[in-house]
């Protein structure tokens, strides 16, 4: 069975994103290390992709007709693992073993170990080039599949991102949609202080991309932008999703230190209460 919901049900997608956040927090608490902030900030976007937009078959991961998702910001692995498990790629119980020796769920995703991960990522700045290559290959094959690539805003400080941005514009890859998780924070602080990335939208526009700028936590806006991006012809699309780091856990939100800190057991309980989750 393919997963996309035919008519987007915003309420159920929002509910799904809540469950995704709960799984992220639980696995990060269990592992005691990993990236909380950037997994939570992109949770709504990636939920919309896996439970609404993308054609994919969890029981047939190599299905030729699938849409592709490249997690260029590989440190958001917990988010990817959560949506893959909840989609049915592998058993949810595996999530509790995140980052443990012998577990396929590596600190950053390894495509050699898990079905559903297209390519290994973790070193920032490399995913968009890969997405471009897939887009070119799909176009050669006259495939209707689309390619989605999630980048962090801090990640766009990497030069390769702009090489890739230039290539996608040059090759007019309209089967490609990049999404920037613009949470405005990176390990050392605010992007504006560490290395200014703004104006993000203008940069991509000038590289010949069609730009959408949305609230990355408003499911209706996310779904609308993803749908609209599909209609853009002759150029790639980028969705600049304005997000809040650690979104969903009030006492972590907007704090740079929760880039790489995980919740304690007490914090998890408090967070689950906030999310209205009973840990189901």
């Amino acid at each position: 069975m393919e997963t996309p919901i035919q008519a987007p049900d915003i309420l159920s997608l929002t509910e799904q994103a809540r469950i995704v956040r709960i799984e992220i927090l639980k696995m990060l608490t269990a592992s005691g290390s990993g990236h909380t902030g950037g997994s939570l900030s992109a949770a709504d976007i990636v939920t919309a992709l896996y439970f609404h937009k993308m054609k994919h078959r969890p029981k047939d991961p190599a299905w030729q007709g699938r849409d592709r998702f490249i997690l260029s910001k590989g440190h958001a692995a917990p988010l990817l693992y959560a949506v893959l498990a909840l989609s049915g790629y592998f058993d949810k119980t595996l999530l509790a073993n995140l980052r443990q020796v012998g577990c396929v769920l590596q600190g950053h995703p390894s495509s050699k170990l898990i079905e559903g991960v297209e390519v290994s990522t973790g070193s920032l700045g490399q995913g968009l080039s890969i997405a471009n290559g897939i887009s070119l290959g799909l176009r050669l094959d006259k495939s209707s599949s689309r390619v989605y690539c999630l980048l962090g805003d801090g990640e766009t400080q990497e030069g390769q991102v702009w090489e890739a941005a230039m290539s996608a514009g040059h090759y007019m890859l309209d089967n490609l949609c990049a999404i920037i998780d613009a949470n405005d924070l990176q390990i050392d602080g605010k992007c504006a202080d560490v290395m200014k990335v703004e104006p993000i939208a203008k940069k991509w526009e000038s590289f010949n991309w069609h730009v959408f700028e949305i609230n990355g936590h408003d499911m209706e806006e996310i779904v609308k932008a993803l749908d609209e991006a599909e209609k853009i012809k002759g150029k790639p699309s980028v969705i600049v999703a304005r997000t809040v780091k650690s979104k969903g856990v009030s006492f972590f939100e907007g704090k740079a230190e929760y880039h790489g800190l995980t919740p304690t057991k007490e914090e998890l309980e408090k967070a689950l209460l906030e999310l209205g989750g009973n840990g189901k």
Partner: protein
Amino acid sequence: MGSRDKETENKPQGSDFCAQSVATRDAYGSALLELGRRNEHVVVLDADLSGSTKTAKFAKAFPDRFFNMGIAEQDMIGTAGGLSLTGKIPFASTFAVFETGRAWEQIRQTLCYSGLNVKLVATHAGITVGEDGASHQALEDIALMRVIPNMTVIVPSDGFETKQVIDAIADYKLPVYVRLGRAKVPPVMPADYRFEIGKAYKFNLGRDVTIISTGIMVSKALQARESLQRKGLDAGVINMSTIKPLDTDAVLEAAKFSKLIITAEEHSVIGGLGGAVSEFLAEHYPTHVLKIGTRDTFGCSGTPDELIKLFGLTSEDIVKAINGFFEKAPR
């Protein structure tokens, strides 16, 4: 059918190169074009050097399957990786310095860690790049590629072997680095030679010394052998075209057979063929190994012939090193 027909049938593709001096990059250009005709999955990427790397031949014949990525090697490697994920067989070419140096981390993270089916065929390796000077002369590329898990490293010795290497790697599913040169090299491999990944070619083993050589140094090793034999030394030559995985059986056999092993490469003596052979022998069969190669130094401008002399890579340099060894340690 007579045996003559059988012979023709077994004649490897590209054996026209057998009797010609040809730059390995030119052999690549022709091999790639032929491969493109036979295999529609083959796609080619270049970083604005297609005229020099000779991928332009393929580009002209198959414009839809050729992607010029501009002067952006890191993006080229990632894009090649992406193309491989759709079942294509990407060949990504530029100069060896830029391919392996500029994009090293992309090769490690994107290609090798994921085990992607991408062929890196770099030209203009070594000091025989000539006049362009040190910035364009890769003397570290074998070391850089050899250290990465999942990577295979191949240095063909002549045009004939290059053609066979290109065909062989197209059928091999993991990342491969092929190191090619700019300058013409004489034919060295016999007409019945069949390249196999990981298999060295033994011209012969010498009781006194065996020269384990790669790339353009194979022809110099063969010249050195002649001159050594004239002086009564029993010398042998191995073409170690695959540096990784190293044909350790061949190295071990030579080490057991010969009093001295000498390696010869147009690359730094650090981390290349000499490094690979020494690492293996130190652990498994401690043997005296001499190394011909560049000595922890950058190259410089000059003609290829001048530079070969300047950096001690002539057949005379090989002979001198061997004679020096036996003068100090009589046979």
